[in-house]
């Protein structure tokens, strides 16, 4: 019986630590800990709610638009502001592009090295790699000469004795199962993706000035002015042409590189369709409206809950059933610390009670993480691409259903394989493919609006704080790349009184709750084999399949729950009446 520690868990956003109990070569129990805290919600107090998004955006620089979007939606919900159609479309394009780019980076740069042995790629026959590449895709960079060049470049690095990012890899680990030729293919596409991601995300620079942290949101709309006749308008025909070109390249990359690679690699690791199963409960707030953002039936990703892997029933989402508890988190509540609190009444003060650093192990029987523990109706939930695809599939969303059925047919597998480490990876790839199709539509819609003289991009009705009620509260939801995200804001006078984010990775990576229920990470590791405790590749495979984002997941709120004087009607994606 051995306690295994993986800290830092690398190739993720943020600071995550996994402790695991290994018995007979398998994990019998595990604990997931976030080891960094900043306190952004405390910092937000007293500031202008119109600029909250600029601050909240810095919760994460990887999913760099999601907190900005959730934040403006929360404030718009509180102040009862509707945004113009063009603003909705531009937000969808920015967030959708984030999702596509983020998923590609995740697969190649954060996850691939769990499956791909870089050292083995040196043994490949480039001609055979070319044959394989051409058999799975029409991508034009698939010649033997091309793969030989890549191989030589990697060989040059290896021969130099200076392995750069690959210096610490687990090369030769028995869990690597790809033939050298497929490893070479993946290494080539690792480099292609590195180049593509920075080209594609110029889309954010066009619409937001830069990436990371595009600077373009407004409470009430966007700064992206449209005008077909103005060269200095942010969006004009020349810029539309550029957006079209970027989206077209994205379609090419996702269709011809990302999705074929995922399917090819998955087909050689079929064991992992039964590992990393996790909770079996899935939550999706829903998002990406094609019309009225108040109407969840217009969402690309339907809102709903699937429980116990039962795809025959989708439950509605009731915002009032969300709680966060701190039984195993380094915070304290002033009153009853044993039970969870709704985010709108949340109360948190950081109180570290863990071992004094440097430490060897955390005290997992007590508090052991900076993440809190979100629950829906007392139940732990998985959120993310798999949750979106599962809820969409169970809801009968035609595009999602067709995409998933297509892959299941290809593998001749039942839908139960979705609930696995590879299921998460496949869901992410299919979702990226769906999203690229949406991006094409939204760019055309924007272009059409501009040509027809529909130029409105901002609703000025509540820009002046003098127009605000004395106090207001609201919340905004978004389906971020990593899953369901919610921001809750409390405004008093002209300032933020209270702010809280309940973030996808908090749902997935949380420590257990007061009744000992594990979160998604902890549950998914149970039963995972570990061939070599010094090189815990199998743990990385399953944890990485969630795409952790720990900076997002750690947060703290003010300690004053109170009655809101201005309950709002729903006005944004994901909004429903809070009470």
């Amino acid at each position: 019986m051995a306690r295994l520690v993986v800290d830092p868990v690398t190739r993720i956003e943020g600071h995550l630590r996994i402790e695991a109990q290994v018995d007979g070569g398998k994990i019998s129990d595990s604990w997931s800990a976030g080891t960094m805290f900043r306190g952004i919600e405390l910092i937000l107090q007293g500031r202008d709610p119109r600029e909250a998004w600029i601050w909240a955006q810095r919760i994460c620089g990887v999913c760099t638009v999601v907190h900005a979007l959730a934040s403006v939606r929360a404030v718009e919900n509180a102040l009862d502001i509707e945004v113009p159609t063009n603003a909705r479309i531009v937000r969808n394009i920015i967030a959708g592009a984030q999702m596509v780019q983020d998923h590609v980076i995740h697969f190649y740069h954060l996850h691939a090295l769990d499956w791909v042995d870089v050292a083995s790629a040196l043994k490949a026959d480039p001609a055979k790699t070319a044959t394989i590449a051409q058999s799975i895709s029409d991508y034009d960079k698939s010649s033997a000469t091309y793969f030989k060049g890549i191989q030589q470049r990697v060989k040059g690095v290896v021969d130099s004795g200076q392995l750069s990012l690959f210096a610490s890899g687990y090369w030769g680990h028995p869990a690597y199962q790809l033939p050298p030729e497929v490893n070479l293919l993946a290494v080539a596409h690792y480099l292609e993706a590195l180049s593509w991601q920075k080209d594609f995300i110029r889309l954010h620079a066009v619409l937001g000035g830069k990436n990371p942290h595009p600077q373009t949101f407004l409470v009430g709309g966007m700064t992206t002015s449209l005008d077909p006749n103005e060269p200095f308008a942010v969006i004009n025909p020349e810029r539309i042409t550029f957006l079209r070109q970027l989206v077209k390249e994205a379609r090419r990359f996702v269709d011809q590189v990302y999705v074929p690679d995922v399917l090819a690699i998955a087909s050689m690791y079929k064991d992992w369709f039964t590992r990393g199963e996790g909770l079996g409960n899935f939550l999706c707030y829903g998002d990406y409206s094609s019309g009225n953002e108040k109407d969840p039936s217009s969402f690309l990703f339907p809102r709903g809950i699937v429980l116990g892997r039962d795809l025959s029933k989708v439950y509605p989402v009731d915002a009032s059933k969300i709680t966060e508890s701190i039984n195993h988190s380094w915070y304290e509540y002033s009153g009853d610390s044993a039970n969870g609190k709704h985010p709108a009444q949340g109360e948190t003060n950081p109180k570290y009670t863990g071992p004094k650093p440097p430490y060897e192990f955390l005290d997992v029987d007590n508090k052991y993480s900076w993440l809190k523990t979100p629950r829906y109706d007392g139940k732990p939930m998985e959120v993310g691409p798999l949750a979106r695809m599962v809820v969409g599939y169970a809801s009968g969303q035609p595009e999602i259903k067709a995409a998933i059925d297509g892959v299941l047919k290809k593998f001749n597998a039942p839908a139960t394989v979705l609930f696995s480490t590879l299921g998460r990876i496949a869901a992410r790839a299919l979702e990226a493919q769906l999203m690229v199709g949406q991006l094409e539509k939204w760019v055309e819609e924007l272009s059409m609006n501009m040509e027809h003289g529909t130029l409105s991009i901002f609703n000025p009705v509540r820009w002046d704080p003098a127009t605000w009620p004395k106090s207001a509260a609201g919340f905004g939801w978004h389906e971020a790349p990593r899953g369901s995200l919610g921001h809750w804001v409390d405004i008093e006078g002209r300032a933020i009184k209270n702010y809280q984010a309940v973030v996808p990775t908090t749902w997935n990576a949380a420590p257990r709750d007061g009744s000992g229920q594990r979160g998604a990470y902890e549950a998914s590791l149970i039963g995972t084999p570990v061939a070599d405790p010094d090189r815990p590749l199998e743990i990385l495979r399953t944890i990485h399949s969630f795409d952790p984002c720990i900076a997002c997941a750690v947060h703290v709120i003010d300690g004053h729950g109170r009655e809101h004087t201005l309950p709002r009607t729903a006005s944004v994606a994901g909004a429903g009446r809070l009470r």
Partner: protein
Amino acid sequence: MLSPGFDISGALASSGITRRQLTKYCAGLLATLALPERYLAQTVAAVGSVKKPVLVWLQFQDCTGCSESMLRSSHPDVADIVLDLLSWEYHEVIMAGAGGYANALLDRIVKEQKGQYLVVVEGAIPTAEGGAYCTIGGHSAIEIAEKVCRNAAATMAVGACAFDGGLVRSSPNPTGALGVHEAVPGIKVINMAGCPHNPANTAAVVVHYLTFHDLPALDQYNRPLFAYGRVIHDQCERRAHYDAGRFVTEWGDEGSRKGWCLYKMGCKGPEATFNCPVVQWNDHTSWPVRAGHGCIACASPRFWDHMSPFYERLPNVPGFGVETSAGEIGLGLVGAVVAGVTAHGLIKMIQPAPQSIPPVASPRKDV
């Protein structure tokens, strides 16, 4: 770990990069650095033949935005930096190994490459609660920074958080966060301020270091002058509209469609220094003002507290007298830009004399 006789030009050649391309790329870097062309041969030689220095990239109280920004580098391409320019061995967000392997690698670099490796720090360093607000492998950020930065050849603090604590340090600074130069005093550190840092500048500094074995000229905040020595307002593509009195006065108005000046919407360009309007972002695609939003002065010291509220016009920013008029807004720069830098046009407009007015002050408790 260095193999004797290895040279990058050989590796470059084997990856299809010609001498001519290398020269072109170095010429581009010299332009960013504002260095004369006579240094070109030296730069090409340094980039082309030097044994690759090891680079360690540490992440503390960060959002990983500065790592992501580095991944957007286009000249040089990020793959070229990682594979050819440096041996980029420790960087949690992207390195191959994890846990014990990662920690052992870092220990080995500190021991075996002592005084030779470069370290980049991203994120603030928390000093409260005995360092418990950020631990990696059970060790506090401050302990790791002490060990790794003190044994490095040079330290680069990238982004606002590593520079001066950034957002994490802003009021009420719940975790006692500090920038690197305060948390690890006395080390050689260059600050690449910005939220995030601009990878074009950071790559240029790295190449400068490889070429001259020293850091470029710095200002009083240890920021390189080539990137932080000029006022944004003076380099702004909308400046002519300011001079002509054409302003955006409401979001989405005619002026916003015509690209007029954003000063009245809270733009902090007149008191911010950065080469953002010139270098721009994401392969020179755009920058925030081009996208219709005012500058938030993200490369300025303690900008989160000092420059917010971001939608207030400059004279209303606490720290400036309420009577200050629009023409006097360049004032804060007297404190922000080191002596010896050419005075920008706005200083001429300032009345009364600059020394009678205090530099930018924090509106909040300075924690």
